[in-house]
């Protein structure tokens, strides 16, 4: 460890001197990796780093564009009495790295890596951020290592960083944890997944058809813009198949995949061998009927059908033979004739259902979020993913989980700070005063209520140590260190 620390210091100095020109970039990355490794077995490391670098380069070319320099920001923890939490500023998404000190080798946990397509970090794309993470977890031997990769749920804003599997193929991972709904062998899980992706698919198809129709009829721009916004929301829930492939099949070191929580409650608090000194509590998503029901897009089947029908009716659906049709201008029953305002109203009536479906779907997928607490010494770190009320409610009322929730010393604010992923009850009645909290978010004009001001204020009223990744405040509270546009981090006593 000590070598690691000293080499890290060197690496930082090296970074400072690294030229920023594009042509130099790759070698700089190599160099810094090499320097980091220190004196111990530099030869072996160098080759390892070379390989990584080469592969990175190879994968990058097809995606096009100039490669930005990746300067590792080492993850050393100041001493063995602290745990480090780093929140990468991916934009409207999540990527958290947790470093647990260990006498031989610090252990690293990556919780999610993704960003919403409509709200990336302004400076760095998600692949750049992914490369940054890989560089940061590269150890002194030149091998990037993450002990546990966690995917809280399959939303784009939590997994899109895994889309390019080549970035991750050199990363040595011991275990990958996903919610039980990702289990390929569980029939219930499969049913839920299929309903969700089918809804997303149908909805996208319906929206495209509608866009086409409206575009052709020269409808107003506002309507089209609204449709585009809904589509962005739905994009989040599409299968994200490439990213999920990386999580299921990617990485090196033949990681063990776990689908959590376990069916047997007693197994849901455990000490994973790969994370010595850490107790993990799996608080959700439960397999209770009520929680599962939240995962089905509400009234899922009706919605599905609605969308199916909408998608299928690219052509006009006329229910009666043309003999029955009477044009508005030719309808000569003045008593029954509608006022123009009524005609307009009725015309709009079948519209506008897409947003409701999109939101229901978004909520359903969020509902599959893995809710995890890491207990490390005196630190209780809560990562609820984007868990919704169903999961929270179950956890808050669970005799085993509630006492733990009361001890929370770090809280990853759910769902980028929106109101429905952090219950008022949790903030007001359960959470103590001595905690830090982080919200990975990016405020966007169209989603005015994310993050929710009242929630952020309520948290700040309890504790000063609350930060946002997009740094709206001029200064961070004490105890937080920020690398502009890249990450903000803090250390907690254990």
């Amino acid at each position: 460890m000590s070598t690691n620390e000293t080499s890290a210091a060197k690496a930082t100095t090296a970074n400072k001197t690294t030229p920023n020109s594009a042509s130099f970039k790759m070698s700089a990355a190599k160099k810094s990796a090499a320097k980091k490794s220190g004196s111990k077995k530099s030869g072996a490391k160098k080759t390892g780093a070379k390989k990584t670098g080469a592969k990175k380069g190879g994968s990058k070319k097809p995606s096009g564009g100039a490669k930005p320099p990746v300067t590792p920001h080492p993850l050393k923890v100041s001493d063995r009495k602290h745990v480090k939490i780093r929140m990468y500023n991916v934009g409207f998404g999540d990527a958290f790295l947790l470093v647990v000190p260990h006498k031989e080798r610090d252990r690293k946990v990556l919780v999610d890596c993704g960003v919403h397509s409509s709200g990336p970090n302004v400076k760095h794309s998600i692949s750049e951020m992914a490369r940054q993470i890989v560089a940061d977890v590269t150890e002194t031997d030149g091998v990037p290592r993450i002990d546990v990769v966690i995917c809280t749920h399959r939303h784009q804003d939590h997994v899109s960083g895994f889309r390019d599997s080549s970035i991750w193929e050199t990363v040595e991972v011991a275990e990958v944890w996903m919610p039980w709904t990702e289990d390929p062998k569980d029939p219930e899980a499969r049913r839920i997944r299929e309903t969700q992706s089918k809804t997303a698919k149908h909805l996208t198809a319906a929206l495209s058809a509608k866009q086409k129709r409206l575009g052709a009829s020269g409808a107003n721009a506002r309507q089209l813009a609204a449709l585009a916004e809904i589509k962005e929301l739905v994009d989040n829930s599409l299968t994200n198949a490439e990213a999920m492939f990386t999580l299921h099949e990617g990485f090196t070191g033949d990681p063990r995949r776990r689908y959590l929580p376990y069916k047997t409650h007693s197994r849901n608090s455990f000490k994973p061998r790969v994370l010595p000194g850490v107790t993990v509590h799996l608080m959700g998503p439960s397999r209770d009927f009520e929680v599962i029901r939240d995962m089905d897009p509400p009234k899922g089947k009706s919605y599905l059908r609605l969308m199916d029908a909408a998608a299928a009716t690219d052509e006009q659906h006329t229910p009666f033979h043309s003999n029955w049709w009477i044009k508005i201008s030719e309808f000569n029953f003045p008593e029954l004739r509608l006022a123009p305002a009524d005609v307009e109203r009725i015309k709009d009536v079948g519209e506008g259902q897409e947003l409701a479906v999109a939101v229901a779907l978004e909520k359903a997928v969020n509902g599959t979020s893995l809710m995890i607490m890491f207990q490390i010494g005196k630190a209780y770190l809560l990562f609820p993913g984007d868990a919704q009320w169903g999961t929270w409610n179950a956890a808050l009322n669970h005799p085993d989980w509630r006492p733990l929730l009361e001890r929370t010393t770090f809280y990853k604010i759910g769902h980028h700070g929106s109101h429905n992923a952090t219950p008022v009850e949790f903030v007001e009645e359960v959470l103590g005063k001595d905690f830090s909290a982080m919200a990975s978010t990016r405020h966007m004009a169209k989603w005015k209520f994310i993050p929710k001001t009242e929630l952020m204020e309520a948290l700040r009223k309890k504790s000063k140590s609350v930060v946002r990744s997009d740094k709206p405040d001029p200064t961070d509270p004490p105890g937080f260190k920020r690398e502009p546009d890249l990450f903000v981090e803090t250390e907690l006593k254990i």
Partner: protein
Amino acid sequence: MAKKNLNYVQPPPARRPLKIYAFDPMLGRTPENRITIDIPNERLAPGPQGERVEVIDFDGANQFYYPPVNLEDPAILMQNGLEPTESDPRFHQQMVYAVAMKVIENFDIALGRRINFTRGRLRLFPHAFQGANAFYDRSLLGVLFGYFRADKIDPGPNLPGQTVFTCLSHDIIAHEVTHALVDRLRRFFMEPSNHDVSAFHEGFSDIVAIFQHFSFPAILRRVIQETRGDLRSPTEMINLACEFGYATGAGQALRSAVEPDAKPDPKLYQTITEPHERGAILVAAVFDAFFTTYQRRIQDLIRIATGGTGRLPEGDLHPDLVNRIAAEATRTSQTVLTMCIRAFDYLPPVDVTFGDYLRALVTADFELNPTDDYGLRAAMIESFRSRGIYADNVSSLAEDSLLLTRPHGLEPIHIERNLAMLLMEKTQEFSRAPSALRKEAAMKKSPTFKPSAQVGGFAEAAPAEEAFEIGLGGAISGMLTGYARRNAADLGLNPNTTKYPVRVLGFHPVFRISPRGQLLVELVAQFSQRDGERRDEFGGVSLRGGTTLVAAADGTVRYVAAKPLPSKDYKGPWKREAELRERRQTGFVRECDRNDAALAWTSEGNYKRRIAASMNFSAIHSGVLR
């Protein structure tokens, strides 16, 4: 129709028979499910366009009209209306009209007065839009029915991708028209102030749809034969909207009047908040009471038929026995339906709960039938109790403590001359010539849709004249307002009537014949108050108070159903009740918020009126049939 010899003019018949699908076209493939019902006769213009209802067949998605049916055409009259078919839009118009009128008639009978839509005719749009939905739209004073293609993968007994018309489902028509009538009788039941308000709208509409099934004698007889009298068995009788359910891929009817395992579960009322599902608890409670009473009423018949054993033999039942059982079932169901609707006069004007409804049911029935001969009232209390539905501020479940509050020593309402005139006028209304009423109705123009009246601010935007159940003279409304001001604290109204002005929402006499043959006359008045400053706090819904007052014909106040606004000046229980209501509404908003993921993605304007908008019956929650 040329010259008439006045000596031989046939008076118009009282009833008009019309053919409909008993349930929907899916079940209508069996010939016996195509039936003829009769409704009160009135002169109809093409549409059909009657006194209270008009059918306007405008297809909003395709932007054309379909030709209106002329039910006065001899060719159609001769055969009791057009034959049921899916391919002729004119039959659709006929069915929508017939079922709507049946529902309205049921309300007329139960309430002992003629229910007019004060703003004009109720408009029915059988093919308004494309979508698996149908809903009542207040701004249009209309019911809009959608049509859609059946599920391609799992259409149940329908053709994959066939067109399904919600306007051909008896249950959907009855459900939506009931929404319109409930809105007519209690306009503030569209303002969600607790979980029960929307659920009551839904549950009550389902109750009307279900109990109308029992007025189809031929079908009832068949079902009794099939189920050997066990009306709880899953048949079309107790299922709602079969075709809709299957066509939307749900693999079952949309809803049922009986819980899945036919067992009441008090936990459901504690946990379920979705309006339709919560409403289903109310439906199950009422149906359970019906079934208990029905069984009690046929026990003797079964004993007679089985030589005293009470155990039915194998094989088919004797047709005479089936007829007698069917008659009892029809009678009981009509009693229950009438009781359910009549309870409306005893409901508070705002913030209703299932518990309030139970109290109203008990009180209304007690007034008419104090001895509870068939134990219907007791059964009702029991079935509500077993589902965990209790009334606020009631000390026990005994019948007399469930009766509404009877104020003592309250100033009687002064029956002055014009009030007496009003009573006279109302008694004549039923027997007046339809043509006179029709002229009156024609004078009222149907409201035109105004975007400002949509979602949210609708309640405040209501024109003043709509506030009255009947065209009250200024004198009567002034007299009532003065009365309410003087007695505010006793009526559960906030005594600070300068800050919270009292509005008279409605005032009408009720005439009923008790089973003992007496004419019962009652006067029902509704008052409301509003704390409009706190609308933002409750997501666009005002904190409202209100009182329904029931007086005897001599003006003595018999019952008060109050929902008080908070105030320090109350004596007795109103203070606690007001605080409880306020807390409940705050909690309700909080619970809605945490479940509503949409709020994260919404605009500021929508956020402010989020709770009010949740009760808009239109497309927001589509696919679940509002």
